[in-house]
């Protein structure tokens, strides 16, 4: 496939952006190896690759956040040096990150011109408002330029960010996973805006894991693997995302492994009745039996995360019934949930999960200090023994049990994090939010194995994931949410990727099928 690596863009004219033989090495790791690509004006290029393939390094180089070790970048054949993100922006290369560069306390128009140097020191409200209205109309957003940004939805904010970059005359717009946090409607809107901008002669690089969207939006797609560009093809030549996946991993996807004993109910499990978490969850009722793995899926904003957080006691506004093995669990109190046998692993490993400056041992025992102490004092022997057992269980190097967690890789950090929740005699319900976020293929298999083991031991598992492969691979039952409600709850045998995708988006076909 590598022979396609330098495939030229469709138009034979002078390319808008050229990346020539760019490399970047971190320590012993070659993050980007002799990457070359070209982008014609008016073209939308998809950038695909697994975690660690070099996508983010390339993006960081293109936006001036990282300086390449070798090679050059040219705009309209003129080599440019990108000193920092602002410098890159002034040369026409701008990025819309998942983390938007907007200030929520400011108004829309104040945000539109935040950091612009072309404004006179004195504010001229009339002129500014005209410019703001003009920009807003170009992205088809009908909001009052004076309204505070915090009143806007995430999707609208993303459009504001795009409008701002357009206002700064960005020639190449890099969208880094822009759709991860958007609803289907909002995604359509963003895509429409992107298509409109491209018609004006701008170009877009679309970085995404969502392969169907890539195939839908892009003219051409470039695939990275292990720091190298392995393919660059017109999307017209790609019939199905399965082909893209093959390019990304270089082999066929292994058939999903199913654990034999899973699905056999051992304990009583959890019963959730009429759970409400305003405004994200309208109504959620579900039984999860002991030993069962239930996969919860839906687009970001569908409420899956909030369901898990509510059951873990982390949503103060949650109301509804929640019993575990027949006993009622109070909502809104994380400590009460833990005592009742609920273990929760947040999707925000660094912010709400691990204690990065503490040792592996400290992290592994953080949730079980009660059972490891007597009269308020820690039983040192028991603590060390438990930590030792857990570190073996999650297969992290036992010699590093005294190291601080910040020195571990993402995959190992995630295993340590899960180790805290798994294998507790007193865990009855395991709640996992995106259990393999930021983890590579090998680490993912290990983590899935750990989750299956927990289920085999009789724990009820409820996990949320936005990745269909993971949902299909792991679940005994798949529950799909949309707009804060359950729209489908099907046994694994009864469902498939196409059906789940349709449910997640509430597409027409599915509704017709349901009728």
């Amino acid at each position, binding site marked *: 496939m590598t022979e396609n690596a330098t495939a030229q863009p469709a138009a034979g004219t002078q390319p808008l952006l050229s990346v020539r033989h760019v490399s970047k090495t*971190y*320590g*012993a*790791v*070659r*993050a980007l190896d002799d990457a070359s690509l070209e982008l014609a004006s008016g073209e939308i290029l998809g950038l695909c690759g697994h*975690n*660690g*393939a*070099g996508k*983010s*390094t390339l993006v960081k180089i293109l936006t001036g956040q990282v300086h390449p070790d070798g090679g050059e970048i040219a705009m309209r054949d003129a080599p440019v040096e990108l000193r920092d993100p602002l410098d890159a922006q002034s040369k026409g290369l701008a990025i819309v990150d998942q983390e938007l560069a907007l200030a929520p306390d400011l108004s829309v128009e104040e945000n539109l011109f935040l950091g612009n140097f072309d404004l006179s020191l004195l504010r001229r409200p009339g002129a500014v408002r005209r410019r703001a209205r003009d920009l807003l109309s170009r992205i088809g957003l009908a909001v009052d330029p004076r309204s505070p940004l915090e009143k806007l939805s995430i999707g609208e904010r993303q459009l504001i960010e795009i409008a701002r970059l357009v206002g700064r005359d960005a020639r190449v717009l890099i969208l880094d996973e822009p759709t991860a946090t958007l609803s289907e409607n909002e995604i359509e809107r963003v895509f429409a805006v992107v298509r409109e901008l491209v018609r004006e002669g701008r170009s877009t690089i679309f970085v995404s894991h969502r392969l169907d969207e890539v195939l839908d939006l892009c003219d051409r797609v470039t695939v990275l693997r292990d*720091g190298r560009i392995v393919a660059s093809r017109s999307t017209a030549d790609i019939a199905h995302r399965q082909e893209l996946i093959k390019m990304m991993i270089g082999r066929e996807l292994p058939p999903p492994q199913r654990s034999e004993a899973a699905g056999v109910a051992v304990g009583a499990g959890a019963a959730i009745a009429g759970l409400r978490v305003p405004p994200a969850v309208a109504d959620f009722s579900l039984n999860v039996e002991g030993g069962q793995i239930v996969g919860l899926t839906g687009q970001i904003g569908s409420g899956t995360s909030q369901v898990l957080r509510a059951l*873990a*006691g*982390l949503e103060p506004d949650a109301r509804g019934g929640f019993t575990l093995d027949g006993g009622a669990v109070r909502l809104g109190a*994380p*400590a009460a*949930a*833990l*005592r009742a046998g609920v273990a*929760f692993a*947040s999707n925000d490993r660094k*912010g*709400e*999960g*691990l*204690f*990065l*400056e*503490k040792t592996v041992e*400290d992290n592994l025992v*953080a*949730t079980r*200090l*009660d059972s490891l*102490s007597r009269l*308020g*004092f*820690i039983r*040192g022997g028991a603590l060390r023994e438990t930590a030792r057992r857990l570190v073996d269980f999650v297969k992290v*190097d036992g010699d*590093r049990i*005294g*190291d*601080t967690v910040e*020195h*571990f*890789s*993402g*995959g*190992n950090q995630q295993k340590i994090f899960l180790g*805290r929740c798994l294998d507790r005699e007193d865990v009855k319900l395991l709640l996992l939010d995106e259990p393999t976020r*930021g*983890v*590579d*293929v*090998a*680490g993912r298999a*290990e983590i899935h194995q750990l989750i299956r083991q927990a289920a085999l031991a009789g724990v009820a598992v409820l996990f949320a994931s936005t990745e269909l492969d993971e949902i299909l691979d792991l679940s005994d039952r798949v529950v799909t949410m949309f707009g804060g409600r359950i729209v489908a709850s099907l046994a694994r045998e009864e469902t498939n990727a196409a059906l789940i995708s349709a449910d997640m988006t509430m597409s027409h076909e599915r509704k017709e099928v349901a009728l």
Partner: protein
Amino acid sequence: MSTDVATAPTGPGPARTGAGGSREAATRGAFYGAIAVFAALILYGAISTDGFLTMTNVRAILSSVAFVGMVAVGTALIMISGNLFSLAVGSTAAAAAMIFLALLPHGIVLAFAVTLLMGVVVGAMQGFLVGGIGANTIIVTIGAAGLIQGVALWASHGATILPPKGDTSFDWLNGHIFTFAVPIYILFGTVVVLDQFLRRSRFGRRLKLVGENVEAARAAGIRTAWVVIGAFSIAGGLFAFAGLELGAFNESGSLLIEGTQTYDAIAAAVVGGIAITGGRGSVWQALGGAILIAMISDILLLRGYSEGIQILVKGVVVFAVVVLARLNRMRAES
């Protein structure tokens, strides 16, 4: 372990080999560094300042450490819990001195108990505001300082409180054992007990977890509000105890007694190397910082510098320490 290699390209993470030992080495380095600083300061004092290395002077230094160390240890607890420091240290101590002396006619046991209880309760209330509803520590503690001063003024009618004439029940607090003042022994005893408590108890472990990342601690089922309330309560008790000793020592109590204790306490904790961002540190470090600050003050005093210069130097030292700690951290991260 293959995961290490595979995920490494996403960021410039440090090589994994040997990284784990670095913190231990850093701790050891900091320990030797502290010894070196002490040795240098003692040497400097001995050479440059007459009367520094005399028993009388050592006794004087330790006497001031006895008070400052106590409030520094309390401040250390608040700092480890991730809530910066209290600006109500001096007010709490001054109020404690006044309460203790005023209650002496009812017997020393009652006076002791009520004084300490006042400290604990006042601390716990601030702890609730900080840990329970997330109010800003600095603001809560200056507000509390204002309230404490108001109540003290109201109750005392602005007068200085004196112990009852001829009352000798508290004289033992001012006594000496083996040439050193009794409060020194109390301080060392407190530090030993508290250090062991923090090491061995569930509370101690939780305190450090909450101090490093309060949201993660909450998600891990730790009742973070109670941990913070606990830290503030113990701290409040220690502030009150220091005030009580100070009242007994001065044999008078008024709001003026607070002196520079608030700043000394914070300076000692910061100079002792307790992370102002929380999660790390021990009460021994606070004690070390208190001794260091007391030695610096003593040298300045012996050489005839004014109170102003002493405060100035403390401020500069605090400034330097927090900036150096930050530079150190930045170097470690890059």
